[in-house]
């Protein structure tokens, strides 16, 4: 046994200290400070910040008020995005992984790289590429449609195309992540399960439903949770591609929070919105986590 002297404990502490300080300065204190800000009338440029208690929160919950509108429409738009994108991110992510696993081993790695590549680029680069792809006059997609004698589509300005565009770019950009996790999960399903099932005469679909799906259930739930959280935090796509339009139909919650703070200069009410948004995200992930792992224990 190593003696635990005061000095020894001190050196042990020194190892954690740098990270602990960063953790406090850039995570713990900001969270507490954010709660403090949300209780104040905190204008970005003014020096004095009056304590207003729960006023900022009350306004968010008062139907008809400006903040109520900002919060609820933002939340509704965000939820629409979650509803459109998450099922596709999960199902197509799995489909892509299944396809990859069926390919000959030699070319598997190559195709994995191809599908995964967009995940490596920045949100802003992704957006600029798709601004060009979706351009009404000069864009690649409308060029393709023109060749098939189909009228041009206003991808970034018309409903429902704005949602189609946002979901398409999201799939292109992020589905590689889900594919990787699914691929690993598929590889861990014991091969003899399939062999036994084949001998029993189970066809491919039967094997998929009875063996593959149950075996990858935990991973599936992990993907659902992470995709939901990521989609809830959607920002780059609507911020740079549709700019919330047409009207306010794709203005997501995160855009409204940041605009309230930086364009409206109202950091107090923006913080209250941010905290409510974070609470919603945490509740959703806890509920999904419970649903996923709770029943087993």
């Amino acid at each position: 046994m190593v003696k635990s002297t005061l000095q020894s404990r001190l050196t042990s502490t020194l190892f954690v200290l740098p990270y602990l300080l960063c953790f406090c300065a850039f995570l713990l204190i900001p969270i507490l400070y954010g709660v403090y800000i949300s209780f104040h009338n905190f204008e970005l440029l003014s020096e004095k910040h009056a304590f207003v208690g729960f006023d900022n929160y009350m306004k968010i919950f008062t139907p008809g008020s400006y903040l109520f509108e900002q919060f609820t429409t933002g939340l509704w738009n965000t939820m629409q995005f979650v509803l459109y994108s998450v099922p596709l991110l999960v199902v197509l992510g799995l489909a892509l992984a299944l396809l990859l696993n069926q390919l000959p081993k030699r070319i598997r790695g190559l195709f994995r790289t191809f599908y995964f590549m967009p995940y490596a680029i920045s949100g802003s680069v992704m957006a600029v590429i798709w601004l060009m792809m979706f351009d009404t006059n000069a864009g690649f997609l409308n060029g393709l449609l023109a060749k098939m004698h189909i009228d041009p589509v206003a991808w970034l300005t018309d409903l429902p195309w704005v949602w189609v565009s946002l979901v398409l770019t999201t799939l292109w950009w992020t589905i590689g992540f889900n594919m990787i996790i699914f691929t690993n999960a598929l590889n861990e399903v014991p091969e003899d399960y399939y062999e036994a099932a084949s001998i029993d005469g189970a066809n491919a679909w039967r094997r998929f439903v009875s063996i593959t799906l149950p075996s990858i259930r935990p991973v599936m739930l992990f993907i659902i949770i992470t995709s939901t959280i990521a989609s809830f935090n959607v920002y780059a796509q609507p911020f740079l591609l549709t700019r919330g339009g047409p009207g306010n139909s794709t203005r997501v919650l995160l855009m409204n929070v940041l605009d309230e703070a930086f364009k409206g200069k109202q950091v107090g009410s923006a913080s209250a919105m941010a905290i409510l948004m974070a609470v919603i995200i945490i509740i959703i992930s806890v509920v999904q986590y419970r649903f996923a792992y709770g029943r087993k224990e």
Partner: protein
Amino acid sequence: MKKTLLILVAVILAAVFLLPLIWMLSTSFKNDFEALAGQMNLIPKKPTFENYLNGLKGNLMNVPITRWISNSLFVGAAGTAIVLLFSSMAAFALARLQDLPLKKLMFPMFIGSMMIPGILTFLPMYMEFNTLGWINTYAALILPYSSGAFGVFLLFQFFSAFPKEIEEAARIDGANKWQIYSRILLPASVSIMVTLAIFTFMGIYNDFVWPLYSTTSPEMRTITAGIAMMAQGSYTQAYGKLMSMTVIATLPVFIIFIVGQRSFVKAITQAGVK
């Protein structure tokens, strides 16, 4: 027969995934006139290096692209170095040092913090840096990434699995904690550190929301924040010029991505495994 069909599907999908990237590369060699003509030629009719040359000379749309790229590389490298050093030290203490006070409190707190949505800290952190007068400084661009717990989590798992005998042998030979950390555990964890480095660098380099808000002066922008700013501005249809910027911005991460792909995939897998 079935295999051929699958490969065909795979190839078509690969084309779909790669096309936007190829289109970006192709457009970067077109002049704005050709880029806006709306033709679907992947090979430019009159390929031009103008966009790149002007960009590197610093007179592309009057933005300092080379400065932005340097900022990004510096911020990414410095942020990664801090994350590697601080998380490995913390993970070492949490995994190997029995007499670390408050270990039972700290560990769940660090790991739990990975669940916290970024928006919760975004505004107060901005106010914090604003109060300190650090907006538009490298500190604002680098430090916020240091609180991420993913590195601590990843290295904790690795360090915990490290055989105790080697550490004890070193202790008997008179090695102190710092020597055990720096001479034994660090050299043994090169591959996982590389993994973490790639993951961290790409995360910091690709982030654009925080740099967009925490910098206001043109020369403090990172390349991704700069591109985001231009995508909102009046340059949105100067596609040839914009695409040369996105190609330049993407090159460093693509090189790292392709070289370190295995590690990157491993890190994602490990993040996914509970």
